[in-house]
């Protein structure tokens, strides 16, 4: 009989798979108590490193054309599609029924494609040209906030993983995701990301606990936004206070994963630009 070569799970940071610098682990079991794997327990130093990589990657990712971003996100779907069998299995370990796993996988796949199609459109829906009363050309466009931290919903399976990772990057942000829930799913999904032309540092996934890492994420001065769901009232209060130090934008409820537009806009600033319009013959107003 041939024994299986079991996988060592590693954190996904800067486009490669790395062990936690702390060397710690926790055990992961399936819903029927079977041992599945030793998961790396990410430390604040892993998080600190991930932020540096995410920051370094952000301006390049933002600078890519919307078309290029949408193609890369679409490729994630191409890579995920062929892993259907594996993920159905993982979802069942997560507690989904066979039928439920099918539905959740399809929802996740469709969600990626839906979001890919937003990359080159949300600016058209959210941006405006403003009819100011003076002779100026005035326009408002969304711009990414920068580096964002998210976590994963406990109940939404792979669709929840997509929702934690993809809307942020569609809008030009880079993401560090705390995968306390759906850790197994998230790290397997990071392999799909690694195959998808997603540039290093754009998405980073750390398996660890909110208890240990939440505060570090909320207080990091170089993180621009934070979106965590499923927290207790006390946790929210605590993190909100820390986040105020650098005016971090925070969200403590999950967004509807199928409403791609709003899930992308959560992580956008609005920039308005003015420029004079010559009026040789004297009429006064703008566009």
């Amino acid at each position, binding site marked *: 009989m041939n024994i299986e070569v079991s996988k060592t799970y590693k954190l996904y940071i800067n486009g490669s798979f790395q062990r936690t610098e702390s060397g710690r682990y926790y055990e992961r079991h399936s819903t029927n108590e079977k041992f599945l794997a030793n998961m790396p327990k990410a430390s604040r130093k892993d998080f600190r490193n991930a932020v540096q990589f995410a920051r370094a990657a952000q301006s390049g990712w933002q600078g890519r054309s919307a078309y290029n971003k949408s193609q890369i996100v679409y490729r994630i779907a191409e890579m995920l599609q062929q892993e259907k069998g594996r993920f159905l299995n993982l979802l069942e370990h997560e507690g989904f029924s066979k039928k439920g796993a099918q539905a959740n996988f399809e929802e996740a796949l*469709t969600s990626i494609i839906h979001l890919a*199609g937003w990359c080159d459109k949300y600016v*058209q*829906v959210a941006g405006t040209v403003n009819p100011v009363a003076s002779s100026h*050309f005035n326009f408002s466009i969304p711009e990414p906030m920068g580096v964002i931290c998210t976590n994963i919903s406990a109940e939404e399976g792979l669709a929840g993983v997509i929702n934690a990772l993809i809307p942020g990057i569609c809008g030009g942000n880079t993401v560090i995701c705390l995968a306390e829930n759906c850790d197994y799913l998230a790290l397997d999904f990071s392999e799909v990301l690694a195959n998808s032309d997603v540039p290093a540092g754009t998405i980073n996934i750390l398996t660890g606990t909110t208890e240990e890492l939440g505060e570090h994420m909320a207080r990091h001065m170089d993180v621009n936004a934070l979106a965590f769901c499923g927290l207790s009232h006390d946790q929210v209060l605590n993190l909100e206070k820390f986040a105020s130090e650098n005016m971090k934008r925070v969200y403590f409820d999950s967004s509807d994963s199928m409403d*791609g*537009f709003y899930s992308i806009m959560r992580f956008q600033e609005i920039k308005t630009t003015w420029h*004079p*319009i*010559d009026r040789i013959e004297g009429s006064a107003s703008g566009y």
Partner: protein
Amino acid sequence: MAKKDKLWTLSPAPESQDHIQIRDAYGVFISGNFTKPGKDRFYSINPATEKKLSSITQASQKQIDSAVKAARKAYNSTWSKMAATERAKYLFRIARMIQERAREFAVIESLDGGKPIRESRDIDVPLAAAHFFYHAGWADKLKYAFPTKDPKPIGVVGQIIPWNFPLLMAAWKLAPALACGNTVVLKPAETTSLTALKLAELLQDAELPEGVVNIVTGDGQVGEAIVSHPDIDKIAFTGSTEVGKLIRKSTAGTGKRLTLELGGKAANIIFDDASIDQAVEGIVNGIYFNQGHVCCAGSRLFVQENVAKEVIKKLEQRIETLIVGDPLDKNTDVGAINSKSQLGTIREYVDGAKKEGLEFFESSSKLPSKGYWCKPTLFKDVAQSSRISREEIFGPVLAVQTFRTINEVIDKANNTPYGLSAGVWTDKGSKIFNLTSQMKAGVVWANTFNKFDPTSPFGGYKESGFGREGGLHGLSAYIKF
């Protein structure tokens, strides 16, 4: 020091053709299948060599009726019932497959239509794929484009496209129509059917449900039959203003929706505070690339008098570096004129202007002996009333006028029944916005020219047509509330 005794010139750099496949004869594409090639056929020839490439079926009335029936059936039973996200997936697939087969499409486009391989490879085919990719993403997001409305498809649409960007025009028409849930009967131009037929093969491989797209080939008669077909709900046409008016008359009172993208006579305006060298390049991009077969071509140059000498001198020098020749050579800048009849039209204008005594400059390039060719040409000091500054030539011929003040040039630029596009070259931002707000044209290019993107709406004012293609604004043509 080393002395030059011989000029360094480019050697031929032919694109390879051995990987492409063109059938000897094609039928029409109805309900997911090609019919047998019909008895009534015509040849598609290579305008650079006058050699025959393939023979194409002239669709019969019966076939046109079948195509419309197939489109209607597909609309009722499959396409309008399909979830929008699933529709999107087909369109994404099509986009990806065009990218995979890019080189073959590019080579066939150049063989069939005469445009340089560099253009079809670098512009036409990538943009066609991008149009499908962009529009695929709209399929399940239409309510964002039309807030408070419940957008629905119109039904069966008939689309007639021109010969100047055959595959790209097919993409511009099909992508939004399909994304919005309509089914299609499309007629490519009779001199350039091949890439549309190759696209039909691709649609088969993409497993697009039968009847969603049907392609009927043939000349103006087939076009007329489509326009007047009672079971088509909307017509989209790109072509000459003359034919656009006929279509408009033909569809009047029928309740058929209509969008038209017609001719143009764009003004390209160079101010003395422009980046002159880049403006010269912009002039060249505006009128000589694609042999001037561009509806939005910058065919009227307005140059501010105090820089006219410099601009024209540099323009003439730049024209001399344009390589006119074999479309399949990777270095060719200006390819073959699409057809004998188009060449005849262009010659008429050029000879007429020369007879009038207008001062002109033309490229000194040697033209091949076979095929249809026209040298890049410019006429100087052309009057506003001259035929060549009022009528669309659709060739590599530029009419040059000078101007002195902004108001003068705005008036002259707008003084035309056309209104498709315009170009303005100045480094002063406030002047740019003044010009752009006053040009009566659907597309205004500032310090650039002939730029296209699937996200950017394109279409004309006045007799250049109505309706927009591309972007958020291009969707409404394919929606009913």
